[in-house]
């Protein structure tokens, strides 16, 4: 019996080694289960699509690309150990992930320390890329997003008094709320209430009642879709019928499913959020991607899928240009990325390793669908 076990182990070791030779290992960490699971799943779908296309076209540097995925269950502690495993055990050459800024911040120092380039598809908090020169992102950052939504509220919706309801434990939410407030006040608006909740909360009526008493004309909720859906329901239950505004954390097919009282998405009807792309944009790059995605996964891609696809392609492009998988070389090429034709817009990486690109404002309409409303350029 024992002999066979040893034989098996030796065999697996042999194949393990043999395999290492002809693939390029890329690590991906994301929340495939847990409170914001649709973010992780969409991102993975996008990355898988990009990887399949690269492999179908002969791979990179003559080798196939293999993506090793770790599920962090939407927990920051798990994110750190997932990245540690990818870097030290699986010996990946680069890391893709996370969506939530708090979890990207947990993983980034490990990549930086080991000189492994990390590309986050959709973490928008500015602190993420400040961790070090190996950390990149392919999306815009929260100061831009917060500013855009504040301007949109003030100029387009003519809101003069706004309230903020944010997730007090999330770097993304606290940051975005703060940038919104700064711009809104600079424009001459007034923030009448600034309340917090915590991820996992079920009941938001205490905060909402308190906000209602201050009579704002709109509430900015820079949170993630699960809580936003519940907040919208409870706000309508309390008779708060003003438009709710938010950021890219809203984008999930689950959002309008939760925010359904009688008809799909009715609790969020006529609300607005900023996003990375609009699915009704006639741009052929976007429509082609949507068609490909739909045949593969039979649903319309959300922004996380698009950014996952872009992040993987930008990384693969950098590896190709570097003609190497060594961390420092790939890093240098990533930093040189300019005018990359991504699905979510032309992507140029700036000196702070952030992407410079426009954002879109989407309106939630009848039936829980999104409608393109405006584009804001940086």
């Amino acid at each position, binding site marked *: 019996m024992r002999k066979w076990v040893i034989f098996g182990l030796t065999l697996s070791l042999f194949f393990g080694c043999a395999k290492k030779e002809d693939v390029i290992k890329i690590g991906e960490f994301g929340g495939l289960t847990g409170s914001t*699971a649709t973010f992780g799943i969409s991102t993975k779908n996008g990355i898988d699509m990009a990887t399949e296309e690269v492999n179908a076209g002969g791979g990179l540097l003559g080798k196939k690309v293999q993506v090793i995925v770790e599920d962090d269950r939407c927990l920051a502690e798990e994110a750190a150990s997932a990245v540690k495993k990818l870097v030290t055990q699986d010996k990946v050459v680069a890391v893709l992930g996370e969506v939530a800024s708090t979890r990207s911040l947990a993983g980034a120092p490990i990549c930086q320390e080991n000189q492994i380039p990390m590309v986050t598809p959709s973490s928008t908090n500015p602190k993420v890329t400040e961790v070090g020169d190996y950390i990149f992102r392919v999306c815009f950052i929260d100061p831009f997003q917060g500013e855009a939504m504040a301007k949109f509220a003030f100029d387009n919706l003519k809101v003069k008094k706004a309230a903020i309801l944010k997730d007090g434990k999330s770097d993304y939410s606290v940051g975005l709320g703060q940038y919104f407030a700064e711009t809104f006040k600079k424009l001459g608006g007034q923030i009448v209430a600034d309340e917090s909740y915590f991820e996992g909360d079920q009941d938001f009526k205490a905060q909402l009642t308190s906000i*209602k008493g201050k009579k704002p004309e709109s509430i900015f909720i820079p949170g993630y879709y699960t809580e936003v859906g519940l907040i919208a329901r409870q706000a309508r239950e309390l008779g708060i019928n003003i438009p709710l505004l938010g950021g890219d954390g809203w984008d999930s097919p689950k959002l309008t499913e939760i925010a359904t009282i009688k008809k799909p998405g009715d609790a969020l009807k006529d609300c607005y959020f900023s996003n990375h792309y609009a699915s009704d944009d006639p741009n052929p790059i976007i429509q082609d991607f949507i068609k490909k995605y739909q045949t593969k996964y039979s649903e319309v891609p959300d922004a996380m899928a698009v950014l996952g696809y872009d992040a993987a392609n930008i990384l693969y492009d950098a590896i190709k240009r570097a003609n190497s998988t060594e961390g420092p070389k790939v890093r240098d090429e990533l930093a040189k990325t300019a005018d990359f034709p991504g699905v979510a817009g032309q992507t140029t990486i700036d000196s702070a390793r952030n992407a410079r690109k426009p954002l879109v404002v989407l309106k939630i309409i009848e039936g829980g669908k999104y409608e393109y409303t405006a584009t804001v350029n940086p």
Partner: protein
Amino acid sequence: MQEFLQQLVNGVSWGSIYALIALGYTMVYGVLQLINFAHGDVFMLGAFFGYYFSRWTKIAQEPTLFGFFATLLFAMAACALVGIIIERAAYKPLRARPRLTALITAIGVSLLLENGGQLLFGADPKFFPTLISESKLYESENLVISNLPAIVLAVSLVLMLLLRFIVLSTKIGKAMRAVAFNREAAALMGVNVNNVISFTFLLGSALAGAGGILVALAYPKIDPLMGLLPGLKAFVAAVLGGIGNIPGAVLGGMILGVSETMVAGYISSTFRDAIAFALLVIILLVKPTGLLGSRVGEKV
């Protein structure tokens, strides 16, 4: 003033959820002196049984009042069964052991249900179908009372009265009290202790199942860890009201719910739990047996 009334309504409706879970804790404790930490997780199972039942029977697509009651009864029956299985498998073999052993086993069962639930149902939240649609019972500019919290409150009060009736005025209730008072003596008097304890778990778990469905109606996000924090706080509510005392559980739940809401609404949501629990410590310092608990002389 109306804002204060609205916060009070919010607090009472949130508190009635604690009350509903606390009832089950307090009853099992009253009979067995066992803190059944798995109670919050049976509550979670209730919500999931309802979720799958209503989807499987297509009740979720076309909700009717009958469909709602069918779902409620199914969840209660399924939870009662789970409760009996837990008692027979995990607690009964340890009944003659020190109380601490049973307590630790209860924590073990709780962890088993939470992690087993994540494996079985998946860790991502599910959204409970709208079996009863929301409508407003009373509406003015600053005060809104909707039907769902009212239903939760009414059901907790009815269940409280029903439980009280069972415990105080039925034969099985008499047997439960006898077992609670002195298990050996009750056995000598011809009370079937095993059946009485099983019945206690059946009743407590069915209550938890009903709680799961009602909470899921008012707060439709359900996940395998949803029983953890409400379960813990319901336990606190039971202690606050005087553990073992049925009206005390409801009162304790209300106080906890209202104080949490008031702190979040008027002071800061960051300090919500801290202040609510500080209040608990103060109440227990002044009245160590809880608000409605009776002082029991330590048996030597």
